C-alpha cells in the first residue's frame, strides 16, 4: 500500500496499520512477523484470492473440456492441447487430466478458499474491531495459523506440480488408496488438507475465546453484530468438527504409507466408514462456509437499508441452531451407500436444516421491508445472495428426499445445487463483505458504477453457468465425466459460455479494486452509515484499533435511535420521541 493512506489520518499517533514501518525490507519483515489481526486478515485475503484464482483456472479448464461431448484423440482434447504434456495424446491420459483438474478445482476451492475465506480474512480483520477489542485473544496463534495455511497450500501446490491427483476432492478410499500407486501426490494433497485443518482449528478457537473474553465494556451477548454471532457459531463447528477430518486424513495417510487397512476394502477395511468419518467433518464444514456469509448479509442488509434488523435474536439463535443441526445430517451425502434405516433417519434430520435457514431468509426479507434501500455494490451483492441462496437451499430439498435423491445422486443437479449454495452463497457474501468493508480496510473508495456492473455480470454468468446444470442433472448427466452423449452438448455449451462470463465479471472486479487502491478517492470514516463498532475506528484503523477502549452504548442496528458515528445528525433525522431515548442512554 502507498504511504498516502497514512496521511489521511495523520492526527492519530502511529498512523494507520498500513503505514510502512520503514524501507521495503523492514516493511516486508514487519508484515511477515506481525501479530496484528488486521495485517493477518489482509495477508489471508490475498492468499485466499490467489488460491481462488488457481481454483478458478481449474474450473475454466473443466468447463472448456466439456465444450465437446466426446474425448476424441489428439485433436479433440482441448485440455490436452493447452495444458497436458506431450504424453497426453490418448483418450485415457486425457481423461486423467480431466479428473485431475476437477479434483484440483474442488480441493482448492473447498479447503483453501471457501472454508477459510470469510472467517480468516474478513473475520480476522473485523471481529475484534466489531467487539471493540485491540486484537484477537491469541495474536501469535493467529499468525501461526496463517503460516500453517501457507504451508498447507504449498503441499497442495506441490501435489499439483507433481501432476495433481484424480481422486475427487473427497478422497474416497478406493480412489485415494489405489490411484497414483508409486507417487506421493495423493499423500501430498491429503497432507495439505490435514495441515489446513489445523489452521482452521486455530482460527476458530481464537475467535471463540475472543468473543467470550474481549467484548467491549457494555457489550452483552445480544449487543454483538450478527456477523460476530455467525463467526462465533462457525468457530464452534471448526473446533468440534475439524479434528475428525484430521484423524480421517491421518488414517488415510497411514493407509497409503503403511497399508493398515482400516478404510481399504481390499485390506478388509470399510470404505463406507471412511465416508462417515469424512462427512462428519465435511458436512458441518459447509456451514462453516456459509454461516459467516450469512452474518455478512445480516450486517450489509441492515446497514444499506438503514433499518434495524428484523428478528435479531432469531437470526442469532438460528446461527447456533444451524451449528447444532449441522452435526446430525452428514448421512445425506451417502444415501446410496448407507443402510435404509440410517438413510431414512438422516433424510428426516436433514430437513431440520431448513428451519433455521428459512428463519434467517424471512428475517432478512422483513428487514428490507420499508427500509431506505440504497443500491450500493454491497447491497446488490446481498440481494444476489438472497436470490441465489434461496434457489440453492430449495434445490437441496429434492436431494434430501430419499426417493428423488436416488435419481439425482452424483448428477449435475448436485453440482448445480452446491454451487448455488457455496458460490451463490459464500462467494457472493464475501464479495458483499469485501465491498462493504473495503473502504475501512484500505481507506479508499472504489468506483461503484463499475463494481455494480461487474456484480451484475457475475450474476448473469453464474446463472447461465449453473442453472443449465439443473436441467443436465435431471436428465441424467452424471458428474465428473469428461465425455457425454451429444444430446447434452447444448446445455454444456451454454454452461461453458456462462463460466467465461463469470471470468469477465471477476476480472472487472479485479480492475475496480486495483483502480481503487491506486487512485481511489479517500474514504470517510463511515461511508455507509454503519452503527457497529468498526465504523467508530479511524479509516483505515490505527495500529491498536481504537484510541481508547470503546464503550458499547447502543445495539448494533439501533437505527431508530442512534446517529451513526461520523455522521452529521442533521443528515440523519431521528424522530423527536426516539431522540429522547437516545439522549437517555448517553448520546
Amino acid at each position, binding site marked *: 500500500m502507498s504511504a498516502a493512506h497514512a496521511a489521511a489520518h495523520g492526527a492519530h499517533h502511529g498512523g494507520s496499520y498500513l503505514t510502512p514501518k520503514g524501507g521495503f525490507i523492514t516493511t516486508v519483515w514487519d508484515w511477515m512477523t506481525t501479530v496484528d489481526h488486521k495485517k493477518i486478515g489482509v495477508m489471508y485475503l490475498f492468499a485466499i484470492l490467489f488460491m481462488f484464482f488457481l481454483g478458478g483456472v481449474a474450473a475454466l479448464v473443466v468447463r472448456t473440456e466439456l465444450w465437446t461431448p466426446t474425448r476424441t484423440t489428439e485433436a479433440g482434447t482441448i485440455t490436452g492441447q493447452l495444458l497436458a504434456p506431450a504424453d497426453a495424446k490418448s483418450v485415457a491420459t486425457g481423461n486423467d487430466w480431466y479428473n485431475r483438474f476437477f479434483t484440483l478445482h474442488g480441493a482448492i476451492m473447498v479447503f483453501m478458499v471457501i472454508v477459510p475465506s470469510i472467517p480468516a480474512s474478513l473475520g480476522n480483520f473485523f471481529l475484534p474491531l466489531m467487539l471493540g477489542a485491540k486484537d484477537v485473544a491469541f495474536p501469535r496463534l493467529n499468525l501461526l495459523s496463517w503460516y500453517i495455511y501457507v504451508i498447507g497450500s504449498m503441499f497442495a501446490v506441490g501435489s499439483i506440480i507433481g501432476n495433481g491427483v484424480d481422486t475427487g476432492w473427497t478422497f474416497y478410499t478406493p480412489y485415494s488408496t489405489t490411484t497414483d500407486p508409486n507417487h506421493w501426490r495423493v499423500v501430498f494433497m491429503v497432507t495439505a488438507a490435514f495441515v489446513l485443518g489445523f489452521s482452521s482449528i486455530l482460527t476458530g478457537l481464537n475467535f471463540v475465546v475472543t468473543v*467470550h473474553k474481549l*467484548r*467491549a*465494556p*457494555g457489550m*452483552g451477548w*445480544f*449487543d454483538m453484530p450478527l456477523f460476530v454471532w455467525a463467526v462465533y457459531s462457525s468457530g*464452534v463447528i471448526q473446533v*468440534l*468438527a475439524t479434528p*475428525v477430518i484430521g484423524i480421517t486424513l491421518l488414517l488415510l495417510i497411514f493407509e497409503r504409507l503403511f497399508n493398515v*487397512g482400516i478404510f481399504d*476394502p*481390499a*485390506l*478388509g*477395511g*470399510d470404505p*463406507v*466408514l471412511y465416508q*462417515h*468419518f469424512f462427512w*462428519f467433518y465435511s458436512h458441518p464444514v459447509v456451514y462453516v462456509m456459509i454461516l459467516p456469509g450469512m452474518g455478512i448479509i445480516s450486517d450489509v442488509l441492515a446497514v444499506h437499508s438503514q433499518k434495524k434488523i428484523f428478528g435479531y435474536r432469531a437470526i442469532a439463535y438460528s446461527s447456533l441452531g444451524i451449528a447444532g443441526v449441522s*452435526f*446430525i445430517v*452428514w*448421512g445425506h451425502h*451417502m444415501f446410496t451407500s*448407507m*443402510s*435404509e*434405516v*440410517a438413510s431414512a*433417519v*438422516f433424510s428426516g434430520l436433514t430437513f431440520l436444516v431448513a428451519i433455521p435457514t428459512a428463519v434467517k431468509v424471512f428475517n432478512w426479507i422483513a428487514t428490507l421491508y420499508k427500509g431506505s434501500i440504497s443500491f450500493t455494490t454491497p447491497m446488490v451483492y446481498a440481494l444476489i445472495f438472497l436470490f441465489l441462496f434461496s434457489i440453492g437451499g430449495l434445490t437441496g430439498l429434492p436431494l434430501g428426499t430419499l426417493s428423488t435423491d436416488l435419481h439425482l445422486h452424483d448428477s449435475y443437479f448436485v453440482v448445480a445445487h452446491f454451487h448455488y449454495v457455496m458460490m451463490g452463497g459464500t462467494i457472493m457474501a464475501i464479495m458483499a463483505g469485501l465491498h462493504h468493508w473495503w473502504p475501512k480496510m484500505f481507506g479508499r473508495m472504489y468506483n461503484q458504477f463499475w463494481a455494480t456492473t461487474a456484480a451484475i455480470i457475475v450474476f448473469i454468468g453464474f446463472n447461465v453457468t449453473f442453472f443449465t446444470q439443473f436441467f443436465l442433472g435431471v436428465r441424467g448427466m452424471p458428474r465428473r465425466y469428461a465425455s457425454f452423449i451429444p444430446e447434452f452438448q447444448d446445455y454444456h455449451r451454454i454452461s461453458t459460455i456462462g463460466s467465461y462470463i463469470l471470468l469477465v465479471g471477476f476480472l472487472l472486479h479485479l480492475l475496480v479494486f486495483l483502480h481503487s487502491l491506486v487512485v481511489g478517492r479517500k474514504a470517510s470514516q463511515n461511508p455507509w452509515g454503519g452503527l457497529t463498532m468498526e465504523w467508530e475506528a479511524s479509516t483505515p484503523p490505527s495500529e491498536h484499533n481504537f484510541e481508547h477502549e470503546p464503550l458499547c*452504548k447502543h*445495539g448494533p442496528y*439501533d437505527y*431508530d*435511535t442512534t446517529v451513526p458515528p461520523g455522521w452529521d445528525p442533521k443528515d440523519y433525522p431521528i424522530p423527536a*420521541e*426516539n431522540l429522547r*431515548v437516545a439522549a*437517555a*442512554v*448517553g448520546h
Partner: protein
Amino acid sequence: MPNALLPLRLLMAHAAHHFNESNPHGEKHHGHPIIPPITLSTVLAILLFFTVLTVGLAQLEVWIQGYFNIILPHWVNIAIAMSIATVKAVLVMAIFMQLRYDNKMNTVVMLFTFFAVGLFLFFSGLDLFTRDRVTPWKAQTVVKGGTGFMVSQANGKPITQAARDRAITLWGPEKFAKIEAATLHGHDHGHGASDSPYSNASKSRAPRGVTVHAADHAGDHAAPHAPADNHAAPAGGH
C-alpha cells in the same frame, strides 16, 4: 418503538458509576484455584484402586466363565470396563484438570465435546449396524474368495492363511505344530465364543455375532482349531 433494551441500558448507565475497568462484564473470576496436595493424593489413590479393580474384574470374568463353564454376554465385560474408565476419567477431569473449581464454561466445552463424540459414534453405528435390516439381499453370506478380509498378493489366500503357510514351509510341519501348541496353549477358552458363525461378503460386517471360521471358506488348508468347511451357504450348525 422505544428501545427494547432500554431498561438494561439504563441499568448499565447507572452501574457505570462504579464501573470496574478490569472487569466490565461483571464476570465471576475464578482466578487460580489451588488444590491441596491431600486432595490430589486421595484422587491418585482412588484412581490406582480403580485400575486394580478393572483389571481384577476382567480376570474374574475369565475365571468365572472357566470355572462355572458359562459364557457371559459381551456387554457385561464392556459395561464394567467402560463404567470404571468413565469414573476414572471424571475424577481426572474434575480434580486434576480442575473442572470442579474452574470457570463452568470449560465444563460446558467438555460436555459438548463428549456429546459430539456420542453423535459421531451413534450415527456411524446406526448405518453400519442396520445394513441388513430392510433388504436381506444386502446381507449375503461369505463365498469362497470373498473379501471381508485382506488377501495376500502372492497367492490370493487370506493373509492370515498365507502367513501360516509361510511358517509351515519355513519350519516344517512338526516344528510348526509344536510351536503352535506352545503358543496357543492356555488361550482360547471360554470368552469370545458366539452363537452366530457366519460372516457375509457383500458387506464387511457379520449381521451379529462372530465370523468364527470365515477363513475356512476361502482357505484350502484346514486349520487345526478350525475344521474345514467349504460350503458357501451359512453354516449355522456349528
